[in-house]
């Protein structure tokens, strides 16, 4: 049997741990609030060259964060490929960023899934942190002025991609 004193300690610990739960508040802000300037970054692309976000002003940019080990990431690849080709003539730029991953594995994943959009690796995790990414996949839609219009956590559908891009064109 646990001693009563120990039980009191445990009860105190459990109750005090509840203090970790934050107070409810309506004063809330998303990590990258919509219509907030998208954090600029420069990233080397797997196919050579680099990608500078600030150099894309005047274009709609769709950034897809993925990982080779992510169970659901491969499911959205065909849709992203279809839409990236469909919108290519309309100043819409697609970029895939591998996070929490290695270059070798990310490239293998892209080859396996038939992903052809420009892609690179967030080597230091800084881009992921700047964009406030916790889970994969996550997709950001950035307007022609470089502001985040919308972000979606989870697998994107063709309808969602068309809807969000059309809003920005």
């Amino acid at each position: 049997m646990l001693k009563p004193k120990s039980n009191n300690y445990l009860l105190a610990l459990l109750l005090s741990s509840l203090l970790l739960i934050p107070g409810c508040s309506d004063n809330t802000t998303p990590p990258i609030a919509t219509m907030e300037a998208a954090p600029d970054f420069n990233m080397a692309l797997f196919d050579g060259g680099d990608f500078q976000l600030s150099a894309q002003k005047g274009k709609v940019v769709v950034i897809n964060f993925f990982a080779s080990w992510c169970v659901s990431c491969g499911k959205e690849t065909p849709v992203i490929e279809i839409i990236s080709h469909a919108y290519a003539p309309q100043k819409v730029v697609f970029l895939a960023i591998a996070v929490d991953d290695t270059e070798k594995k990310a490239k293998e994943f892209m080859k396996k899934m038939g992903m052809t959009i420009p892609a690179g690796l967030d080597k230091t995790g800084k881009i992921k942190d700047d964009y406030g990414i916790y889970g994969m996949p996550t997709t950001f839609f950035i307007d022609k002025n470089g502001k985040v219009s919308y972000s979606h956590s989870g697998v994107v559908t063709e309808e969602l991609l068309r809807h969000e891009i059309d809003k920005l064109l």
Partner: protein
Amino acid sequence: MGGGAAVWGGFSSFFSIWQVCILQISPFFIAFIVGIYLATVGKKADPEIRRWLLIPCITYGIGFSVFYSLLIASGLNISRPLIHNIGLLRVVSGIIILFVGLYILLVNRISFLGKIHTPLLLSTLSLLIGVTFALVYSPCITPMLSDIMGIASQRNTAVEGWYMAFWYGLGVSIALCMTSVALILFAGRQEIVLRNANLIKNICGIILLILAVMNITGLMRHYKAFVLGFVL
């Protein structure tokens, strides 16, 4: 979607293909709980040891679910600094895990550690492990989690989303704790385990040290890419 559905969503994800992503933390939690169990074997009667494990499981679940839900609920003000500093927080988590791993390795060798080996200490360590595991974890977004994150990212529904994310995280924790305790009940009294209890405990401590080093140095991405990728 209610809290019960969210708990079930998290719980069931553990026993599905999504377990591949949960492998980021599940083997390390099993190492932790088995390590503290084997550090206690021989010192206490069986029923008491089970109670010793039950409360750490509860505090782990609370620590994990609170921080997991805060990281999911991106619409909350309190979440913003957590999410944007998660790289640094993972290093801090690695340091905490390092101390927990060392504790498991040394508890039977240093008499002072043996004296403070109490349910209170184990529950505190479990709470810390829960918090750190939420920070080092990168969830794959299931369809239900996608819905929750959608709600949790909006200013006017962030609290509701946080609430559901908490229950979802608790569902994952319950499944993980049930699996770990079942493993201990099944294998914990086997002759071969008891004969090699100290060795297994040390291996558990070393597994936690490996997790700690991977998070401090950034090598965790290699674990995710190669181990999880291999399973997938």
